[in-house]
């Protein structure tokens, strides 16, 4: 053990490494303030290796330096919370000793450069986050955004991302239970790829990524380390530009086969009780996993990079520390267990290699074949990154847009509905989810294509519902209301299946936070999300911030995707989204005021993104959730579908069109004349007020449904009834009677995306 503080933190340059100059510091995306702080912390100039370590851990991605104070406001507690933010995934309590671990992560920039591998490795990373908690992944979801599909390159990105997401999850054997896809101009240069994973564990088997026990051993388990994705974390923390093409780190290639072995080996290691802690090597690889595990445990670590199995010869400690090679884990264990750990890994055809140990001096120390190349006070390395609170100012353009409205332009409602169902933002995403195995693990009760995915938990009564949602257009116009709306939509989707919302994880995709108008969006969106989570008692259990989603064509819409899970006490009482049988009574739940601000109607049909979105009434939303859950519990509902993009008309049409594998559509007859007297037909049909759902019930259940609705003060309007197979959809509103052929609507809805994807994709 070193005698003095100086000795403890002495480090030498490795071989012929470059001296640290201001230029080198800039290349590492560290500003002057940050560099000064590093020098002060070390009392000397850092070595290049150390600079690399700081650059990774002080990147936005790892340090949350622009977001920490804002994220603090999120509600994170509740009786159901087993593990809040701060670990690899959040964990919520379920009945019978079970718990659910879940988390969402972005992989936007890697996917912009290489859509297939970028998306695939995104799925790989989120799976690892969940199984390092000791949970078996039981479902994945994905939230995607691209530029419009009439651009060949966007089709190329879309197709590549979907294939990447699918190939990875399919191979590992985790069903994709849902997701969302959106298209808008702002995503053209910067697509968004967010992947979410949900895992199940026995609460007693939970393991945290906390290194403990001086002289315990650190082992690398899994794939060899190559030169992939070096500096991925800082790459994710800058805007995309021509330059990033050149600076592009070696692309990370996913190996889902090794992931599957790693999953089985990790779970076996955890349940055997043989290890102290485990963490996946995600962004910033070995550096962040070892430094963060040590900091959480309040200990130091010493690793020797020359012991790490590499894929290529001659890798430097710098490269080994910062490599983002996939499918690797870092494990902490007592020395006496190393043999047994190796044996378990060997059974799964993996290697486990000791590369260092825990120390009591709190130093993050790296050696390479004995030479100390980095020695940094560990706690400060992880925690002392400067925190910024940038200026926030709403852009004047947005304020003006909110007050604007489109030029009046009469679109006949019949045609409007058809065109909305043909818009890729609203049309069925079957082209996507058919490429994802949604039934492996033989537990899928409601797969993609409805409001939320539902799985059963074998051996129990209960089920788990899950969704991921965000209507970014609303946030672009009003980030505060839009943030609330994203949580509200997720909760509505969950409640429509009959499940009670339990908690959320979020993936906050924004532009450059150093721009006041972007930081304003971020701050306001988070405020909205927080308020909604408080109102719904759905704490935030973790998430991910992805800034710098900008390209030369501008920033993306503020897109905080909300991943939510819910509990269905009785899995067999789940409620589907589509109408079930002719003669059922149709009820519209909730009130309609006909707000067209931010609506799909204006955006898709009039090419106008503007107006003020409907303010979110959190108590009305909460009441609706309670009603849906209670009605499902009492088995009153035949179907339930929430109203979101496209409003009431789209919700009714989608329910009538039927699920992707139904024999066909069902007709419906509605009379809405008494629902909202005096309201303009367009506003009534296509307005996007929240807190509404279209449900159907057996006629003899109607009275009980109305009683429940009255109890929680949710307006329940009896609108009509479900018709025959293939029958028409007829709606009477105001003085008009509208009619559509549901078989034709079904064709439009399911063919909209395949039709566009028949056009060729082009990389350039």
């Amino acid at each position, binding site marked *: 053990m070193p005698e003095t503080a100086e000795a403890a933190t002495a480090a030498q340059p490795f071989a012929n490494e470059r001296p640290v100059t201001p230029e080198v510091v800039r290349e590492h995306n560290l500003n002057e303030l940050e560099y000064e702080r590093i020098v002060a912390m070390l009392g000397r100039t850092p070595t290049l290796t150390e600079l690399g370590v700081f650059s990774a851990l002080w990147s936005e991605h790892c340090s949350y330096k622009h977001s920490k104070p804002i994220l603090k406001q999120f509600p994170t507690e509740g009786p159901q919370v087993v593990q809040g933010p701060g670990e690899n995934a959040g964990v919520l309590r379920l009945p019978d000793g079970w718990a659910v671990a879940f988390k969402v992560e972005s992989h936007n920039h890697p996917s912009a*450069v*290489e859509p297939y*591998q970028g998306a695939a490795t995104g799925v790989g990373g989120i799976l690892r986050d969940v199984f390092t908690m000791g949970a078996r992944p039981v479902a994945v979801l994905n939230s995607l955004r691209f530029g419009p599909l009439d651009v060949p390159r966007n089709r190329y990105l879309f197709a590549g991302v979907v294939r990447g997401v699918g190939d990875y999850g399919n191979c590992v054997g985790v069903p994709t239970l849902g997701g969302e896809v959106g298209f808008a101009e702002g995503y053209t240069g910067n697509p968004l790829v967010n992947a979410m994973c949900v895992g199940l564990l026995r609460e007693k088997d939970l393991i945290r990524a906390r290194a403990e026990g001086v002289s315990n051993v650190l082992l690398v388990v899994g*794939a060899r380390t*190559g*030169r*992939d994705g070096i500096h991925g974390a800082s790459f994710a923390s800058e805007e995309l530009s021509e330059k990033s093409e050149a600076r*592009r780190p*070696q*692309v*990370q*290639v996913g*190996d889902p*086969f*090794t992931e599957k072995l790693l999953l089985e080996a990790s779970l076996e290691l955890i349940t055997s009780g043989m290890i102290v802690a485990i963490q996946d090597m995600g962004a910033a690889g070995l550096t962040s996993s070892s430094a963060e595990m040590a900091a959480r445990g309040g200990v130091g670590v010493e690793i020797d990079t020359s012991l790490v199995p590499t*894929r*290529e010869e001659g890798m430097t400690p710098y490269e080994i520390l910062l490599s983002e*090679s*996939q499918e690797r884990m870092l494990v902490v264990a007592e020395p006496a267990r190393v043999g047994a750990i190796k044996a378990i890994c060997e059974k799964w055809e993996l290697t486990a290699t000791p590369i260092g140990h825990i120390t009591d001096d709190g130093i993050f120390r790296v050696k390479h074949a004995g030479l100390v190349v980095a020695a940094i006070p560990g706690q400060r390395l992880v925690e002392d990154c400067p925190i910024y609170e940038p200026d926030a100012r709403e852009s004047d353009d947005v304020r003006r847009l909110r007050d604007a409205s489109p030029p009046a332009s009469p679109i006949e409602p019949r045609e409007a509905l058809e065109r909305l169902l043909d818009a890729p933002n609203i049309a069925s995403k079957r082209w996507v989810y058919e490429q994802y195995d949604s039934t492996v693990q033989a537990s899928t009760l409601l797969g993609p294509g409805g409001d939320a995915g539902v799985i059963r938990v074998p051996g129990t009564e209960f089920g788990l519902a899950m969704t991921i949602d965000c209507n970014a257009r609303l946030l672009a116009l009003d980030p505060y209301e839009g943030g609330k709306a994203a949580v509200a939509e997720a909760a509505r989707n969950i409640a429509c299946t009959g499940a009670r919302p339990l908690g959320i994880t979020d993936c906050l995709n924004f532009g450059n936070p150093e721009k006041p108008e972007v930081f304003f969006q971020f701050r306001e969106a988070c405020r909205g999300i927080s308020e909604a989570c408080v109102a719904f008692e759905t704490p935030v259990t973790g998430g991910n911030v992805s800034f710098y989603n900008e390209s030369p064509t501008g920033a993306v819409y503020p897109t905080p995707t909300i991943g939510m899970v819910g509990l269905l006490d009785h899995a067999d009482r789940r409620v589907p989204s589509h109408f079930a049988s002719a003669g059922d009574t149709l009820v519209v739940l909730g009130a309609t005021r006909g707000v067209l601000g931010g609506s799909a109607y204006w955006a898709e049909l009039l090419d106008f993104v503007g107006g003020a979105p409907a303010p979110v009434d959190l108590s009305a939303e909460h009441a609706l959730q309670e009603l849906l859950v209670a009605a499902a519990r009492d088995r009153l509902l035949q179907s339930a579908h929430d109203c979101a993009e496209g409003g009431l008309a789209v919700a009714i049409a989608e329910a009538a069109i039927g699920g992707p594998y139904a024999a066909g559509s069902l007709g419906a007859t509605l009379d809405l004349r008494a629902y909202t007297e005096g309201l303009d037909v367009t506003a009534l049909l296509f307005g996007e007020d929240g807190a509404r759902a279209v449900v159907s019930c057996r006629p003899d259940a109607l009275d009980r449904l109305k009683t429940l609705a009255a109890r929680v003060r949710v307006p329940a309007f009896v609108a009509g009834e479900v018709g025959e197979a293939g029958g028409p959809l007829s709606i009477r509103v105001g003085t008009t009677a509208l009619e559509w052929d549901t078989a034709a609507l079904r064709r439009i809805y399911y063919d909209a995306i395949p039709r566009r994807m028949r056009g060729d994709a*082009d*990389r*350039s």
Partner: protein
Amino acid sequence: MTFRVHVRVMPRAGLLDPQGQAVEHALGSLGFAGTQQVRIGRAIELELDAATADDAAGRARQMCDRLLANPVTEDYELEVEAR
């Protein structure tokens, strides 16, 4: 004139090639000891009309750059053969 072009598109050196790894391992356990550096890519064959072999190669190279190979992850080589 018609030319036949053989293109070999391989994962770029240094990039992980899980497929090659798996095959290398399998060959080992089938008794083909000492097989190394297994890498797996795509073989593409096509025919095109061009005035000269050089012309044909030029066209084929354009095809590779635009469609047949992924410049981010793959390298390619091609051979042209008169038919």
